[in-house]
């Protein structure tokens, strides 16, 4: 894995994926779900952005929206999604389908429900290939599929290719999904909790595999996860979402080592660790994640924030802007002043943090 590069280096050329002010809304019978509210980010080829958040933070919807996998009848999409310089936000289903697979692909959390149970894995990988290589013959597609299955670490791919998804274990199915996603060599890969359903030893294998493939194909990866451990291993950049908004964004070093938002502090403090005092109480974030239909006014995090009172009432009325904090490239949406946060961080958080 490439060590994280410092932020300024990124702006040399146009990033492969640029999302500007993305908003996603769903109409449901309980009301309008504001799943994503003005999220912006960019990912270069060869780099990994992790979108972190709890359930109901809008992180998965963000990933789906980039691929145009939302249901167009129920969803209202706003903002710009530039993939390789082309805005895909307004494209219709047919145009997006051409891009999907070729330029961008997706890996889901549950490979069993994403693979068709009645077709062999080989047929599914071949189909993914032939969609974008219509001139390719059966033989060529099959060779390609075998090669890809072998590349993602499936032993004896020439035999396993004729097996059905249920004959594979969870880790192997996830490899099949990755093979399907990467068979057309897409420039952008979106992975939605790709390892959440897997055992730790298999998770480690899959994360290693993604890193290897990224190095080989120079893919831009957006990895959606709730697991900060995974983030610390694979991310170059991190975007922390809460209530459909970005609350903190920066390089992995900045966000995990020098977090500047009380929510990120809370997330980090609540993760149980293999180091430090095992008898110490964990420090959870109080309360529950908000409902996306009825977001709290002002800063969505204020009902759970220990420092909301220190903002002179602004946290309940104004939505905080995403402003630069500390090092370049690091942005935070919080009403507390930079100095105040620095003081609180040193007082309350820094000493509980584990030395790296």
């Amino acid at each position, binding site marked *: 894995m490439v060590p994280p590069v410092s932020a300024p280096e990124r702006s040399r050329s146009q990033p492969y994926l640029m999302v500007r002010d993305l908003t996603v809304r769903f109409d449901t019978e309980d009301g309008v779900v504001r799943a994503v509210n003005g999220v912006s980010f960019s990912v270069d080829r060869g780099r990994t952005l992790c979108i972190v958040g709890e359930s109901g933070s809008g992180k*998965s*919807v963000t990933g789906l929206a980039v691929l145009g996998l939302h249901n167009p009848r129920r969803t209202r999409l706003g903002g710009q999604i530039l993939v390789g310089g082309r805005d895909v936000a307004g494209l219709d289903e047919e145009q997006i389908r051409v891009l999907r697979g070729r330029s961008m692909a997706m890996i889901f959390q549950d490979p069993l429900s994403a693979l068709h149970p009645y077709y062999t894995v080989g047929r599914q990988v071949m189909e993914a290939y032939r969609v974008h290589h219509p001139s390719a013959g059966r033989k060529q597609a099959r060779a390609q599929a075998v090669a890809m299955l072998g590349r993602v670490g499936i032993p004896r791919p020439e035999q396993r290719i004729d097996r059905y998804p249920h004959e594979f274990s969870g880790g192997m199915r996830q490899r099949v999904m990755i093979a399907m996603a990467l068979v057309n060599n897409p420039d952008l890969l979106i992975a*939605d909790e790709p390892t959440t359903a897997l055992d730790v030893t298999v998770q480690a294998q899959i994360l290693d595999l993604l890193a290897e493939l990224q190095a080989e194909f120079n893919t831009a990866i957006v990895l959606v996860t709730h697991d900060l451990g995974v983030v610390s291993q694979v991310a170059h950049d991190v975007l922390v979402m809460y209530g459909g908004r970005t609350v903190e964004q920066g390089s992995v070093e900045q966000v995990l080592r020098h977090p500047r938002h009380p929510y990120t502090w809370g997330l980090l403090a609540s993760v149980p660790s293999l180091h430090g005092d095992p008898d110490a109480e964990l420090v959870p974030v109080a309360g*529950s994640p*908000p*409902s996306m*239909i009825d977001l709290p006014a002002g800063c969505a995090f204020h*009902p759970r924030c220990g420092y909301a009172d220190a903002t002179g009432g602004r946290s309940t009325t104004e939505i905080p802007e995403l402003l630069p904090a500390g090092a370049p490239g690091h942005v935070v949406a919080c009403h507390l002043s930079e100095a105040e946060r620095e003081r609180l961080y040193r007082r309350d958080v820094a000493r509980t943090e584990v030395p790296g």
Partner: protein
Amino acid sequence: MSLSNADDIALSEISATGPQPPLPKAGLVGRSPGQQAWARLRRDRVATVSGAVLILFVVVALAAPLIQRLYGVGPQQQFQDALDGLGMPLGYAGGITGGHWFGLEPGLGRDIFIRMVYGLRTSLVIAVAAAVITTLIGVAAGVLAGYLGGWVGAVIGWVTDFALAMPFLVVALALVPTVTLRFYGPRQAEPAVFRAGLLIVVFAVFGWTGAARLVRGQIVSLREREFVEAARASGVGLGHMLFRQLLPNTWAPILVSFSLAVPSYVTGEAVLSFLGIGIVDPTPDFGAMIYRSIDYLQTDPTYVFFPGVTIFLLVLAFNLFGDSLRDALDPKSSR
């Protein structure tokens, strides 16, 4: 890579926090899943209209004697003087007048409207009774087969398959006259109640299998849920398990299957009566009326029109309502 998968992810992300986790002021008593379904049903236009039509039909059927008194004509009353020499009703459109709203029957000259009111009554009583009985048998068989499994489940499964394998019409055609003959002599007129009861029994013998299979499937999938294990770990008995834990979770499909069973028995009863093994003539009935009207299809089309349209509306309303009910009770949105 299907779209539905993506949809599920999006939906699960939205619903993961629940519709109202902060538990707002809405009162301290929560809305049960049933109340939610009711609210959804009331917002559904199709459900309201079809429901209103159904209620109208039921009220008419229940109030038949009252309608007879207000209308001033009985179902067996004959108006021979309003027929011409060939037995056809005088006047236009099958003899529709202010006194006979839907006209008169050719031949006997009975009033079609009041016979339909009573026919509705016969039809609904038989259909609802048959639906209630089949649902009860089906639920009992399905719950036992689903929860106990093992040899009980296997035996119930065989019986279900056996019942499904019997050709309904053939057995009904063979059975009904034989049984009738067994109880009443060839020259004896059997009472209408006996005929109706016999029809209900025939429907019950054949109809319970659908509900049984449905409920069995539901129970088998519920049995895997952790709340069932939790109840077992608390030491609950079989009765509590079936009636307090499992059955309340199957009401939705049971209600839907019930509401779709009624119209199928309405048509079934009409078919049997049409074939002459259901309700027979002096008793007012849709099937029997349509059977008689076939002879006059050319000469007096209104005779077949009114019973035909009414039975069509009745069945349509039931089916539409059943579909709306299914949508309202959809477990996915009431999880």
